[in-house]
């Protein structure tokens, strides 16, 4: 009765299988606030990090993140998984909105610059998740497989929020060339990252 239960070495009890983000998103589409909270926990670092990278100002990045996450809540029913994953959809929305914010800010007040005067609101980069580190490494490795011009063109557009015409000016290159480098750079990245069609 009291005999110790023998334990076999190996993986412990199977963990509760984590719900896929796609599945969470369809629950969100049905108005499930609990699912939305889970979705927040799993996507907010990516959303905020990307917004922050593009718009740079912490307060503005927070605004953009809030807008995007609310947009996800409101329009979850419009997500079509045959057109890509939930993660891809959410980050596409994030990038579009962050770029809009940068361009709008520049257009509305020519020289207005946004920043935090005190510098006190900055959050330390905390990414102790192993998966995240691996993601970084893989993306960095794959970026390294691009030609210099491809890498700079993709980086200035994606992380810098620049149009291809601006990118061409910054790189002192022909706009037609930059357009092409953006596409073939993405093809090479896609293949290196193993993004399935």
């Amino acid at each position, binding site marked *: 009765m009291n005999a110790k239960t023998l334990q076999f070495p190996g993986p412990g009890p199977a963990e509760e299988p984590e719900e896929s983000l796609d599945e969470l998103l369809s629950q969100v*589409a049905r*108005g499930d*606030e609990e699912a*939305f*909270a889970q979705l*927040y926990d799993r996507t*907010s*670092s*990516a959303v*905020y*990090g*990307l917004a922050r*990278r593009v718009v740079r100002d912490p*307060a*503005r990045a*927070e605004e953009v993140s*809030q*807008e995007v996450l*609310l947009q996800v*809540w*409101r*329009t979850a*029913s*419009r*997500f079509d998984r045959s*057109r*890509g994953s939930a*993660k891809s*959809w959410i*980050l*596409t*929305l994030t990038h579009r909105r962050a770029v809009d914010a940068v361009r709008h800010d520049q257009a509305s*007040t020519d*020289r*207005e*610059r*946004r*920043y935090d*005067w*005190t510098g006190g609101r900055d*959050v330390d980069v*905390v*990414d102790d998740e192993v998966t*995240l580190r691996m*993601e970084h490494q893989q*993306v960095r490795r794959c970026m390294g497989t691009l030609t210099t011009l491809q890498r700079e063109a993709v980086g200035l*557009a*994606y*992380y810098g929020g620049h*149009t*291809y*015409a601006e990118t061409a000016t910054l790189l002192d290159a022909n706009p*037609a060339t930059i357009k*092409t480098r*953006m596409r073939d750079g*993405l093809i090479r990245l*896609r293949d290196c*990252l193993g*993004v399935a*069609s």
Partner: protein
Amino acid sequence: MSPDVHTLVGAYALDALDEREQADFEQHLQSCTTCSAELVEFQATAARLGEAASMAPPAGLRESVLAAASRTPQQRPVVTVVPISRWRRYGTTLVAAAAVIAAVSLGVLYVGEQNRNDELQTQGPVSRVKNAPDVEVLASGPGKAPVRVYYSRSLDQAVVMVDDLPTIDKKHSYEMWAIDAEGPKSLGAMPEATESGTKLVSDLGQATQVAVTMEPAGGSPTGKPTGPPVEAVDLT
């Protein structure tokens, strides 16, 4: 459009087209299955670049997003059934079927577009103040004043926007002050040689004025203004 229009799919996936080209390319996407298919892969690829930039968001964001969601209605799913009478009116079912397909792909591809306008009520901290029902817009002078304060007393928050103060060199910074009965309290100095910026201020308290002074780079060394205000905004 030029023959190399397909090339634009890369720039489009990176949001690197200007508004006009973007609209044109979206037109192209409706009829080009090659580009539509490539776009799905490119967006997934770009998303990986996005994920690699992950950073923990400010602690308050979670609560604010979840609270906003619980009072925000959701859009209904798109139902792509075309009424029979309408099909007849179009003459052939083929035309109607094509219209349905176009509507479906539009709904997917331009989901970022179609929600832009009705999203304005979802606000971050700065726009929340600027759009607060009781917001007062106070300026340091008539016309295009260099300092404007959007002040919501109900939120006890203000957005201070500084635009085009006189040019200063790298040895100087502009510094903002909230002035109450006890005197000036610093709202922080702007970077050196900078004449424009925006700041969210949460603690105006009993202040009656927001003032700007020119200080040594990085702000006043004494914690008090070292000279007279360049601009001032009365809060009362």
